[in-house]
């Protein structure tokens, strides 16, 4: 039989327990969005599992959507006050999304700029706007030359090309034309694939030009060097006839890569994100080489890009804290190791990038070695700027316009785009 005091004490304990349970039992929920890509989805799921184990008071909901319509979902969700706290986006979309109010900057306390700049690969600087960082990547990608070893050997070619002239010679040996029909291309041309990056950041520089000013606000490629670079690329189709755009199947996503996998193209320039697709699809031995240069000791250049995790305005207060914790977790060295294993993309941290086993790896090596000499174009309107370069190339190849005229048109349009963006802030 309990005394009155006893009952009171019991009641108090009970009440306190309830309060205690309530406080610790309510987890903070944050939502993470990325587009649907099997390996990335699995990697994030695994990271979430580990994160939640370390942080039992935070729950991360992972939602994915078809790549084709990912931006639309974000476009509709954020203004409606719903949607993700953290969103994964292509770094090139940053200016447009930021200006439209879809992102918030990474809090300085959590992600000091100095720390980022000393620990991450320099190209991550493309995530900086107005002096603040708006996102961080787990992985980065560069370009390299994929080549068909079996085809090479069958035609007595011992090693991949070091220079562009060598590439042309090899490609000529491997290209097959039959009665005006291209049956096999020595080099896969894809202006709407990665080749517009190739012209913009690699060829123009290798030919002695500069694509943009340091701050990427001025178009500087409309010079004789730039024209020579464009002409070199378009000559591959028009003069050397070692390939052409839209081969083998126009319009189909990744057509040049599929053509490579099918053995219809001997060499393509592609990003490290293509490794998985090629591994699964190619039924022959294939290799990877660093992008060729103009002369045996000429300059090397490459284009690097990344998808980054960023915060939306929805993340506030406790959720902002939780989101920052998660962000730090998925950009930690351990996360990047896991990402490399599961997704096959290069880590974004300098400490992991200089490991000998990666640098010497036959597949990853060429991509890794390219990082120090890679440039990540700071796009303000990625879709449009990309289109401008694609059109510049196709005007020459398909519409008979001269490289000078085509490049001039492109430069004028692109400068107008840049001016419009930087003019109105």
């Amino acid at each position, binding site marked *: 039989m309990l005394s009155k005091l006893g009952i009171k004490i019991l009641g108090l304990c009970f009440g306190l327990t309830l309060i205690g349970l309530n406080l610790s039992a309510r987890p903070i929920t944050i939502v993470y969005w990325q*587009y649907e890509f099997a390996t990335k989805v699995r990697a994030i799921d695994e990271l979430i599992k580990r994160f939640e184990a370390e942080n039992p008071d935070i729950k991360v909901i992972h939602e994915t959507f078809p790549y084709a319509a990912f931006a639309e979902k974000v476009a509709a969700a954020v203004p409606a006050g719903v949607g993700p706290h953290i969103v994964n986006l292509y770094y090139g979309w940053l200016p447009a999304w930021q200006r439209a109010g879809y992102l918030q900057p990474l809090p300085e306390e959590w992600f000091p700029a100095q720390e980022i700049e000393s620990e991450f690969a320099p190209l991550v600087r493309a995530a900086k706007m107005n002096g603040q960082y708006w996102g961080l990547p787990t992985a980065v990608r560069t370009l390299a030359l994929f080549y068909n070893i079996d085809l090479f050997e069958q035609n007595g070619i011992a090693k991949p090309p070091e220079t562009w002239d060598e590439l042309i010679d090899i490609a000529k040996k491997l290209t097959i034309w039959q009665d005006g029909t291209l049956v096999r291309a020595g080099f896969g041309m894809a202006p709407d694939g990665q080749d517009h990056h190739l012209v913009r950041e690699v060829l123009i520089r290798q030919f002695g030009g500069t694509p943009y000013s340091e701050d990427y606000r001025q178009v500087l490629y409309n010079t004789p060097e730039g024209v020579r670079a464009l002409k070199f690329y378009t000559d591959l189709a028009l003069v050397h006839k070692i390939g052409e755009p839209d081969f083998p199947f126009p319009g189909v996503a990744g057509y040049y890569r599929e*053509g490579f996998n099918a053995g219809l193209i001997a060499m393509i320039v592609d990003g490290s994100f293509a490794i998985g697709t090629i591994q699964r699809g190619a*039924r022959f031995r294939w290799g990877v080489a660093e992008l060729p240069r103009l002369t045996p000791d000429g300059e090397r250049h490459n284009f690097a890009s990344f998808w980054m995790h960023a915060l939306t305005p929805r993340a506030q207060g406790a959720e902002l804290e939780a989101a920052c914790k998660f962000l730090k977790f998925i950009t930690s060295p351990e996360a990047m190791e896991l990402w490399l294993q599961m997704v096959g993309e290069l880590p974004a941290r300098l400490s992991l990038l200089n490991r000998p086993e990666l640098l010497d790896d036959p597949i990853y090596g060429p991509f890794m070695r390219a990082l120090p000499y890679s440039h990540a174009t700071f796009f303000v309107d990625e879709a449009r700027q990309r289109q401008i370069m694609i059109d510049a190339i196709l005007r020459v190849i398909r519409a008979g316009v001269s490289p000078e005229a085509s490049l001039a048109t492109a430069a004028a349009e692109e400068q107008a785009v840049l001016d419009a963006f930087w003019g109105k802030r």
Partner: protein
Amino acid sequence: MWGSKLPKFLFWIYLYLLVLLGAVIMVFPFVWMFLTSLKPLPEIYTLNWWPRNPTLANYYAVLQTYPFGRWFLNSVVVAIITTISMVLLSSVTGYALAKLDFPGKRIIFVGILATMFIPTELLVIPWYSMSVQWNWVDTYWGILFPGLIHAFGVFLMRQFFFSVPNDLLDAGRVDGLSEFGVFWKVALPLMKPALGALAILNFVGNWNAFLWPLIVTSRRDLFTLPVGLAMFSGEAGVQWNLITAGATLTVLPTIIVFLVFQRAILESITASGLKG
């Protein structure tokens, strides 16, 4: 005339050949798509027509990787409900616009028609904010509400109702039917072909709707078929073997619906009840 000069038999042969040629052109890409769905991924880019070892593996993959059955159900529910709503509401409105006189008729018709002239891509933004506000996100209602009525249905029914002779309607009125009775018992039964056409076209339109269902749902199990199908493409490479398999599965129900409806409804009506 040329029709009577040629032997009738030859005429029909030519006609059938023409129809057959047209049919080949119509069906060719679909056949290609279907044959592709029977090939494994690496074989897709070889140029042979027939699959070397036809396999149903793609179909299994599609059905197992994602809740295809659930998506199918979602598509069915949405398409059926919106089609019923469209048919009912459009016939009522179309009838009023065609056969009844009331002030503002012209303006209302033009207004309804004008709602078609704006791309759906833009409407999704206000629709989405509406859905968030009223908690329709991730619900069947959220997916269906834009499809409950559409200017196309009203326009179609109105045009078809013009062919109903007014005398017939007046006869009904004289017989003591209310206005609704005239509509329901006299006019509507004559509209079988129109209703059939509307049902088929609307069903297909909703079945293949992609953008809005994508925007309003986040839960994987609420996707409709087209949204689900889009999951098979990504930044690096598209799994065409799976997409073509998925597309074939998506098409089959609509073919069945079409066959059922068109046989029952598109046959010529006889003139019984209609004065010449």
